[in-house]
């Protein structure tokens, strides 16, 4: 790794303590991943939720803030571990909330946008094609590379803040053309796709691509950006995927051949039975859930509207809670449009600035979680305490409402 003279100065501490701390991290990681230089970024997206950062993460973020750190580029933040406005009404313990608010305070001191969402590209962080960004949040990184045509590695916790404070990131991985070439082609022929199918398809790709960049053929022309969002989230939850070439959507990849650089690559057929196998794998039980969770990643206003229509005239069964997760911005719009009321009339709760997979579901007493999110299913079941049911939104609503 070659540092230029201004970067050397930061490493020696001439730019202050926070930048020196950041540079120690970024330079050593850059060296480890064989980057030849550090390059400027246009934006950053960082993590500041207590469930994953733990006390170590609180120490790190507070160290950045206390040593005078300021974000050098526009920086957005992933959801918190609690609904930042209504956490008490969700039964969040005080001690837990206190640690989350320490993270919120440190993040605010660093000068970040207080958007608290995992779909920053739908809310507050809008890079344009070709720009280099340093984003955490695996699903957003897939969206940035595959749909926006940006260049981002999956920048993980700690490194994310260091990059944001410097406005720099090591040039490696998905920032280099040669690593963006597709090395495996998935060919989908599974008929019409439900909301669940997009998530399962992503999960299948994540499981089977290994460390190769996939290209995906066979999506219908009607696919929405929300569906691609959930596809990418499923893929990133299941494997190391950071980009999926989708001919017709991914900038620069009009065809599979363009995505593979004209090379012949392994082809993997994806049929209805493969999607069914993912469902069978993620489904752990047939019990009635005590929590239904929608919105991992966060639902857009449009998706909230669709959910409101599905819930019309229905009431949740006794013993079942339904939490619907979105950004604070979409939450406000849904309130103004009457969508929030249509969702909450069923007994469901619309919640914002947090998300299910990073909230203390076990501490809140949930045992069976039902969702249409492959990402949530994967994460929640990983911890082994909560069992998961995985089904399409419509099927879930039919089962848990009367």
């Amino acid at each position, binding site marked *: 790794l070659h540092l230029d003279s201004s970067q050397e100065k930061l490493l020696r501490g001439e730019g202050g303590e926070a930048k020196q*701390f950041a540079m*120690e*991290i970024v330079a*050593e*990681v850059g*060296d*480890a*991943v064989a980057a030849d230089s550090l390059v400027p970024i246009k934006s950053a997206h960082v*993590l500041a*939720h207590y469930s*994953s*950062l*733990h*006390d*170590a*993460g609180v*120490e*790190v973020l507070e*160290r950045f803030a206390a040593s005078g750190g300021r974000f050098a580029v526009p920086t957005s933040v992933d959801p918190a571990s609690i609904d930042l406005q209504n956490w008490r009404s969700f039964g969040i313990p005080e001690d837990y909330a206190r640690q989350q608010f320490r993270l919120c305070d440190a993040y605010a001191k660093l000068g970040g946008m207080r958007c608290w969402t995992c779909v920053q590209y739908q809310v507050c962080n809008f890079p344009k094609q070709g720009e280099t960004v340093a984003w*955490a*949040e*695996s699903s957003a*990184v897939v969206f940035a590379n595959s749909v926006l045509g940006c260049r981002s*590695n*999956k*920048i*993980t*916790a*700690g*490194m*994310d803040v260091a990059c944001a404070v410097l406005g720099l990131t090591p040039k490696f*991985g998905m920032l280099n053309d040669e690593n963006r070439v597709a090395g495996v082609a998935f060919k989908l022929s599974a008929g019409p796709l439900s909301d669940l199918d997009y998530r399962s398809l992503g999960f299948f790709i*994540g499981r089977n691509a*290994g*460390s190769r960049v996939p290209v995906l053929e066979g999506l219908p022309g009607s696919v929405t950006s929300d569906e691609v969002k959930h596809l990418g989230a499923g893929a*990133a*939850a*299941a*494997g*190391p995927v950071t980009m999926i070439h989708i001919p017709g959507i991914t900038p620069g990849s009009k065809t599979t051949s363009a995505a593979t650089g004209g090379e012949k690559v392994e082809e993997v057929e994806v049929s209805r039975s493969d999607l069914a196998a993912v469902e069978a794998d993620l489904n752990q039980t047939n019990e009635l859930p005590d929590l239904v969770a929608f919105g991992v990643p966060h639902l857009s206003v449009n998706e909230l509207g669709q959910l409101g229509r599905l819930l019309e005239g229905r009431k949740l069964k006794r013993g079942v809670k339904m939490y619907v997760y979105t950004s604070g911005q979409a939450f406000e719009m849904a309130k103004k449009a009457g969508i929030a009321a249509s969702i909450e009339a069923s007994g469901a709760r619309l919640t914002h600035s947090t998300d299910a*997979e*990073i909230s203390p579901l076990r501490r809140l007493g949930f045992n069976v979680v039902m969702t249409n999110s492959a990402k949530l299913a*994967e*994460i*929640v*079941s*990983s*911890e*082994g305490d909560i069992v998961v049911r995985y089904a399409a939104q419509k099927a879930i609503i039919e089962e848990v409402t009367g």
Partner: protein
Amino acid sequence: LTAASLLGRGLVAGDASGGALLSLKAFTFAHGVDPATGTVTDVRSDIRGANVKGKVLFYPFGKGSTTASSWFLEAVRLGNSPSAIVTEGVDLSAVIGSVMARVVYGREIPVVSGVSRADYSKISSGATVRVSSSKGGARVEA
């Protein structure tokens, strides 16, 4: 004489040893290892129930959430991290977690990549493994 000597790429430098803990599936610390104990909890892991503390942990690739490095760092803070990590592909979470461990807590946890599943699966689980990792290269001896 060593039973096996594997060469890899040294991502984070350092020397360490410990019992071999071998996973053949994509691995994550995020929601997959309890930092308070070091126990692998991930239901999809082939080493669920094993403890990573003090072990030389082998797995092919990382997966999932970008929070993995902070779960790793919390395990370091609580003294429950592996002593070294050896992978096939580069797991950025392991690299960042290890760099943070040194910068924040002064702990040295070498990370090595480029050791294939086919090669490391020949090591017996629990066998004492020595890892010597530097920018020039890395050697894993069992």
